């Protein structure tokens, strides 16, 4: 497994090997799938759309619908305006979505297609919507594209009428439907009126009922997006993912926002709940206090199994940051913390955590890749890896257990339905981590050290 990877780390300035991120459009597509009745549309060659649908389908094991402008060489030379026009007409004709969410690709970006103009010129059925965002694949990552698409919805749709609607706008970050459900459950428990954008629950984790629904029940409605402009305030969960859309909403509609980390682990969930609590000054319900206490109880009871165990954490920046904080809360050492997405905020926030928890010899790196992580591990291994499926080859090569969390997970089932956010999600995550560690103890110990009680 990965036999060609040398132990010696060499500096690379041009060659990316085994990336830890992908391109903007797939993030935009996922964001658009979190809007009710929305068909994401990829403005470029049809290969992009096919790859992105495949990627999302493999992660969610659920249909990921999207259409394409199907550029040919001609369109690449003369511009994709005609293709988009045709596409919009056909889409409303055949699939009848409520809204089409267009994102660009490196192709249409490189030729400089004017999407705003094209959309103004397109024939849009009465009561239907077409929005767009620019997602050049050569800038940022899928996370950037996700944020951009959310901003796109806001720019096109959200309006401030002057009448506040009493709601909290919530940007959930690049997370699974199961996570979004958990965020909603917490807000509902706390009696918070909210609009969450996007909301892929009920879409990308929709049930098998014997009937296929192209546009399932879930997703933020267009009406809700429009009304976002009237929200009291906004909560951006995940600085590196959600702050940009929150800023867009503030700029356009003067909705003030607060940025928080993804609510992964104790303190980040605390911060989420406190922010909600400040929004709605009811007492925090006992149910949440109970869940929190249960989580702490588990963490304390099991602490000797997590204490000073080392982890390599890789994946998307806000998710990795959240998991890093949680493993620190568990007393673990997050030895390698990497994301493929570029951006120094990541390095800064993770370094702050290292300092807060006074851990030594830990490395953080944004714009990194799995090849580099593997080389580090070869030189100094860890007890557990936490991240997506692509880490599995490293895990096997180095005989390290892999806890699957984040994106993409394309070799297991169930993960997208169940949260890692909130106290409940943390219980799930700690179970996964502890099991990985303790299974190894059970596997590797001598017969005479095999423990019945642990």
């Amino acid at each position: 497994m990965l036999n060609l990877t040398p132990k010696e780390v060499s500096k690379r300035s041009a060659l990316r090997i085994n990336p830890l991120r992908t391109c903007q459009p797939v993030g935009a597509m996922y964001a658009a799938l979190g809007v009710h009745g929305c068909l994401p549309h990829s403005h470029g060659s049809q290969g992009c759309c096919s790859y992105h649908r495949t990627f999302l389908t493999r992660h969610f094991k659920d249909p990921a619908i999207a259409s394409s402008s199907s550029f040919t060489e001609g369109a690449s030379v003369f511009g994709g305006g005609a293709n988009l026009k045709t596409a919009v007409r056909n889409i409303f004709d055949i699939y009848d979505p409520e809204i089409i969410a267009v994102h660009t690709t490196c192709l249409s970006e490189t030729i400089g297609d004017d999407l705003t103009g094209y959309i103004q010129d397109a024939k849009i059925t009465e009561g239907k919507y077409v929005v767009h965002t620019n997602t050049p694949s050569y800038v940022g990552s899928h996370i950037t594209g996700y944020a951009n698409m959310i901003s796109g919805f806001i720019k096109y749709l959200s309006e401030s009428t002057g009448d506040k609607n009493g709601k909290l706008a919530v940007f959930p970050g690049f997370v699974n439907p199961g996570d979004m459900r958990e965020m909603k459950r917490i807000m509902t428990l706390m009696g918070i009126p909210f609009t969450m954008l996007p909301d892929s629950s009920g879409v990308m984790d929709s049930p098998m009922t014997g009937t296929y629904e192209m546009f399932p029940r879930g997703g933020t409605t267009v009406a809700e997006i429009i009304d976002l402009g009237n929200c009291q305030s906004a909560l951006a969960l995940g600085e590196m993912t959600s702050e940009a859309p929150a800023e867009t909403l503030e700029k356009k509609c003067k909705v003030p926002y607060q940025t928080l980390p993804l609510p992964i682990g104790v303190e980040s969930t605390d911060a989420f709940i406190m922010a909600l609590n400040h929004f709605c000054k009811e007492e925090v319900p006992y149910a949440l206090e109970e869940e929190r206490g249960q989580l702490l109880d588990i963490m304390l009871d099991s602490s000797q199994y997590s204490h000073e165990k080392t982890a390599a954490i890789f994946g998307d920046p806000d998710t990795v940051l959240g998991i890093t904080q949680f493993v620190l809360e568990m007393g673990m050492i997050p030895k390698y913390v990497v994301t493929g997405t570029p951006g120094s905020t990541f390095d800064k926030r993770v370094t702050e955590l290292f300092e807060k928890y006074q851990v030594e010899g830990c490395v953080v790196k944004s714009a990194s890749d799995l090849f580099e992580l593997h080389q580090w591990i070869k030189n100094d291994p860890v007890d557990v890896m936490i991240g997506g499926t692509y880490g599995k080859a490293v895990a096997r090569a180095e005989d390290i257990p892999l806890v699957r969390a984040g994106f993409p997970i394309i070799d297991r089932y169930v993960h997208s339905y169940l949260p890692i956010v909130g106290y409940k999600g943390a219980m799930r995550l700690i179970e996964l981590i502890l099991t990985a560690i303790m299974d190894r103890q059970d596997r590797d110990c001598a017969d005479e050290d095999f423990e019945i009680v642990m």
Partner: protein
Amino acid sequence: MDPRDIVLDKYSSKVYKNRKEHVITINEGEPNVIQADTRTVPGIMTNRGCCYAGCKGVVIGPLKDVATITHGPIGCGFYSWGTRRNKAKGDENTKAFGEYCLSTDMQETDIVFGGEKKLKQAIKEAVEIFHPECIAIASTCPVGLIGDDIHAIAAEAEELYGIKVLAFSCEGYKGVSQSGGHHIANNGLMKNVIGTGDAEPIKYSVNLLGEYNIGGDGWETERILKRIGYHVVSVMTGDGSYDAIKNSHTADLNLVQCHRSINYIAEMMKTKYGVDWMKINFIGPEATKKSLRDMARYFNDPELSRRTEAVIAEEEAAIAEGMASCKAVLAGKTAAIYVGGSRSHHYINLLKSLGVEVVLAGYEFGHRDDYEGREVLDTIKKDADSKNIESITVTKDPDHYKERLSEQELMALRAAGVPMEEYSGMWEDIMDGAIITDDYNHFETEEFLKYLKPDIFFSGIKDKFVIQRSGVASRQLHSYDYAGPYAGFKGALNFANDVAMAITVPVWDMVQAPWKKEPLLEGSLGGMESC
């Protein structure tokens, strides 16, 4: 109205005009003509991919000893990394790059100022880290647009590092589907690799063309061929290698499995090196038997023929019981099958031998000859899109050309039903009344599911869950749902078992919630109305 018309009628007139040529009902006796290999209507949710996917993803990617660098933004390289199941195995002498994804990961500055410098540096880093024998460069969309000259860079790197460096300008927007990419890849291999080796010819040697070793199909096929006594010089390109393909011109015969993706090479090798080719099909016991017997006829050696029959008898006996028990489950079922370029055809007879009729079929990126047979080749008009994909012309190689069989011998074989340089396409096996849809799309999937209600639908990952949601069993024929092999005899049994499983999983009996079907009983438990 037949289902075809019902479905097509739902389209607007413009789309109808386009799609009516791509969707036909097979009529007995008639020449059934279909439109294919034309551009997809924008906005239609096609299943097609792009030129890069066909070139790098399908043909070049599987070459195990080649360090393929995707030149472009990160996405394309990422998506084509480790996901296509073209299995490969390295050894002490063969570096296997399958687990690696190499990319120049172009950034905005590279787009603005050109990516050549970064590509050169990336090649340098790849050489220093991996010391490969061969590097391939595959371009994605922006590269062509900004004008990076990857071919010049490849030539320069060959010089600089003393290794082979191949360049493929397979930008995603070229052509109308993956198909253009196959062609570009074929051209590149023909121009730069095939015939560059100096191995000695070996008796009864063949190349396996258009076999990508999905789920280990190629290995299973090779196992059978080796049992009989054949020598496989190279496989293009599943578990294939630059090292082996260099010598592919020394083989006696090219066996073409996937016609669509590789017929170019077969044709060109015939012209340039005199290597004969025949269309074989190692999917299903009947097709496998015919292919093995055709090969025996070609080589015309009694011992080879004897071994062929002995191996067939043994392999067939080993699966007989299993096949029969699957057939007992499957007989009478109907299937839809919609994948790639040749596979949709290959599985029809295997399904028939399990008692399953294909009522709906189509290709994602097939050409008319893949449907109607190569005899229509001359009647296919080139359009602007296909003209954009370079066709290269080869001529007899003065050093390496060698006639294998004489034209008379080949004619005799053809007369005896051996498909020498022949392929009769899907029509040969599809049943009358079946509906064929070229460049199938989401809308048609949904609609035909409703009207044809097949028991099993073979498709790809993008459709799979749409189909299952509709209550219909689905198996992926691109990836075999991470199972396989499906080739040869044992593979046929694997397939049969998997299909039987897909149709009989207990979930199907539980789809409907009981409260959705049972009428509400009155308070048998003493319940109160009020609650």
